[in-house]
Every structure is written in structure tokens, then in C-alpha cells.
């Protein structure tokens, strides 16, 4: 592979900017949520204040290995995003994403806390739930573009969403699970005072929670990047369209989050697989008839 400056700029841009974009998006999330509930809400920069505070607190860890697992989670997540924005294989990105999630499960289950254990088990159920839609996304892109390379998918003549509306819907649907929003915030309840006590992050304090939070920001930017991949094409103007669609999708997630209560995992599994099958599955069948 020859050296490509544009790729390097994309990768460095992701590494440097993703935490800021992710943090800002969370800040807007909290502000918009507050306004939806007719509250004033915290400042936009609140997520950054939280992380800064977490780094200033004493770290108490029941098992010190938790920090190593969280670092592995973070490194793999950054790796996933860097590969995606570097324009490498989309399928490989999704595989590394799953590996990263596995390290999060290790970090949660290493402590033996019951809340943390429930969170880790539910995280596994969540993975089982969203994985078909994620893989289908990669399959959809391959069918219409003949390649998994993000680089070449993004340089196609038309937007992928035109022929992949079902795949797009399925991916946005599982975004609710990946972003840990109601009604699918099974592993870690979206609000910390609920019966799960944040589930998967119960035993993470101070520095560990800060690492986890920053990793979530990296992950969110990567996932929204995949949403954008449905829109972008050879035309530079399509990137503006992609940003608009990403913001709309993010607003939709906030709206869903505020308008729904958490469902049981059985319901989540049935709904998600049903939606994946009906939208991405039907779209896939139509594609196979057209793109023979």
C-alpha cells in the first residue's frame, strides 16, 4: 500500500478530535435532554468537567487488572476508529470493535460485584442483539460496491443510502443499543441512581471511569462515522449532507431516550432481530435480485 497523506490526516484528525466531538455531543445530549424535561440543564462542557474531576480523584480498585482491561478496551476502540477513518476494511473495523467490547466485559466482570456482573452479562446479550445488524451493514456495502474498503465505498458515484435504506434503518436502530440509550440501556442504566446502579460501570471509579467515558466518546464518533458512510459519495458536498444526517440521527436518539423506559432484554432481542430481519433482510433480498 502506498503512502497516502489524506489518510494520515483523517486518522490524526480522528485521534485528536474524536474525544472533543464525542464530549461536546454528550454535552448537547444532556442539555437537550434537560430542555425536553423543561429543566435548565448542565453547561455544554459538563462532560469535560466530569472527566477532569474523575482524573483528580483517588482511584480505588477492587482488582487492579480492571485498569489494564479498560486500557485494552480504549486502545482497541481507538484502533477501530482509526482504521475506519483511515479507509481500511469495514469488516475488520467491526471485528476489532467486538474485540474491544469483549475487554469491557472483562473489566466489568473481574470485580465480582453483583451489579457489575449483571451489567457484564447484559452487555453480552446486547452484543448478541446488535451483531447481526452490524455484520449486515458490512454485507450491504459489499454487495453494492464490491469491496469492504471504506476508502473506495466513500468514493462511489452515488450515496449508499439510496439502495441501502433498510440497512440504514437497521443500523440506526442498533445505535440505540450501542450508545446505551433507553429503551435499550440494559447493561448500564442511563441514569446512575436506578436499580442497576449503572451496571457495567458500578465498580469503576475515578481514573477508570474517566478512561471508560473517553472510550465511549471515541466509539460514538466511530459509530456516527458509519452513519455518515451511508451518505458520502464522490461529491464533496455530500460530506455536509452526511453531517446533517448524523446530527439528525443523534437528535432522534436523544428523543427516543427521553420518550421511552427501559425494556426487558427479551423484548430488546425480539425487537432488534425482528427489525434487522424485516429491514436489512428484505433490503438484502432485493439487492440480490437486482445486483446479480
Amino acid at each position, binding site marked *: 500500500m502506498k503512502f497516502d497523506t489524506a489518510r494520515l490526516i483523517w486518522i490524526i484528525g480522528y485521534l485528536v478530535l474524536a474525544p472533543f466531538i464525542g464530549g461536546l455531543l454528550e454535552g448537547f445530549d444532556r442539555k437537550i435532554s434537560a430542555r425536553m424535561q423543561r429543566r435548565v440543564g448542565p453547561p455544554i462542557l459538563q462532560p469535560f468537567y466530569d472527566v*477532569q474531576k474523575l482524573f483528580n480523584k483517588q482511584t480505588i480498585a477492587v482488582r487492579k487488572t480492571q485498569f489494564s482491561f479498560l486500557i485494552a478496551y480504549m486502545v482497541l476502540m481507538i484502533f477501530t476508529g482509526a482504521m475506519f477513518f483511515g479507509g481500511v476494511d469495514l469488516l475488520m473495523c467491526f471485528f476489532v470493535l467486538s474485540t474491544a467490547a469483549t475487554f469491557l466485559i472483562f473489566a466489568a466482570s473481574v470485580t465480582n460485584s453483583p451489579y457489575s456482573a449483571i451489567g457484564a452479562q447484559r452487555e453480552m446479550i446486547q452484543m448478541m442483539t446488535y451483531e447481526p445488524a452490524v455484520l449486515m451493514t458490512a454485507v450491504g456495502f459489499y454487495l453494492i460496491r464490491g469491496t469492504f474498503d471504506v476508502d473506495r465505498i466513500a468514493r462511489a458515484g452515488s450515496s449508499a443510502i439510496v439502495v441501502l435504506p433498510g440497512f440504514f434503518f437497521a443500523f440506526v436502530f442498533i445505535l440505540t443499543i450501542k450508545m446505551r440509550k433507553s429503551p435499550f440501556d440494559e447493561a448500564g442504566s442511563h441514569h446512575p441512581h436506578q436499580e442497576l446502579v449503572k451496571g457495567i460501570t458500578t465498580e469503576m471509579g475515578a481514573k477508570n471511569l474517566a478512561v471508560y467515558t473517553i472510550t465511549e466518546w471515541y466509539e460514538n464518533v466511530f459509530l456516527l462515522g458509519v452513519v455518515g458512510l451511508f451518505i458520502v459519495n464522490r461529491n464533496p458536498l455530500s460530506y455536509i449532507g452526511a453531517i446533517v444526517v448524523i446530527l439528525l440521527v443523534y437528535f432522534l436518539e436523544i428523543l427516543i431516550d427521553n420518550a421511552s423506559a427501559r425494556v426487558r432484554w427479551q423484548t430488546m432481542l425480539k425487537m432488534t432481530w425482528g427489525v434487522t430481519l424485516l429491514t436489512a433482510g428484505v433490503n438484502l433480498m432485493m439487492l440480490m435480485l437486482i445486483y446479480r
Partner: protein
Amino acid sequence: MGKVKRSPWLLHYDGSSCNGCDIEVLATLTPVYDAERLGVENTGDPMQADILLITGGINEQNAPVVKQLYDQMPRPKVVVAVGICACTGGIFKDCYNIRGGVDTTIPVDIYVPGCAARPQSIIDGIIKARDLFQKRSDEHDEYEKTHHGGAGEEKING
């Protein structure tokens, strides 16, 4: 070093109270008073909490629980006693199983009187607590610098 006072996370524990103060604590988080605009998050996890908010007096049964919650919170931390029962034992003071206020079991920093304490005075208590939290944090950083490797990484015993 950093401005930690912008992000005080609360842990609310209900001692042997009549629930009047608890309802007022929850009221401070509702849209009318909205404590979240100060960066407050109501967490149920002592490991992530900065300010321990206790309502109601301490009796023989909940004393070990309060002590354990306090011990599980990472430094720097602040304790706020909300309501007259948490301050002194209040109307339950002379009951056979009541030890008295929260300060009979753990050190209390801020006392918020009232029966029940009004949301306005609870928010005032939180603001005083977060200033103290900032001060403690600065002292904690100073301690970290002078005692290198001593206080940062610590295991809970038992």
C-alpha cells in the same frame, strides 16, 4: 488542581428519617429546582460519589451501613447532613435505638437544618459542599505531590 467543583456527584442515603427530607432532596433534582445545572448528578454508587448526602438520624442498625458507604467513597469527599434529624437526631433523639445525628458515626462537614429542609437550603448546602470539595481536592493534590505513590493507588481492605 483542576476545577473539580463543577462536577459534584451526590450519593443520597436515607437514614432513619420520616422521608420528609428525602422527598425534598428529590425535589431539588426536579425541573423546578434542577440541581443538575450545577453539574450535580445523583449517583447510587459510592465509588463514583463526591458528596454524601444523609437524611435522617443514625440508629444502631444503619450505623455500620453509613460507615461503610463513607469508607467506600474515594478521597476527596464531603459529608452533608440534611434535616434536623441528620444534624442532631431531632424529634427521634431520645428513642432507645437512636444514636443521634450523623456526626455520631462519621465526620460531617455541612449541616443543613430544617424539618423538612427546604430545597433552597439543600441547594445552598450543596453549593457550600462543592466549595469545600474543591478545597479538599487542592489539598489532596498537594498531598499526592509530596507523598508520591502513597495515596493514589489503594486497595480496599477486606
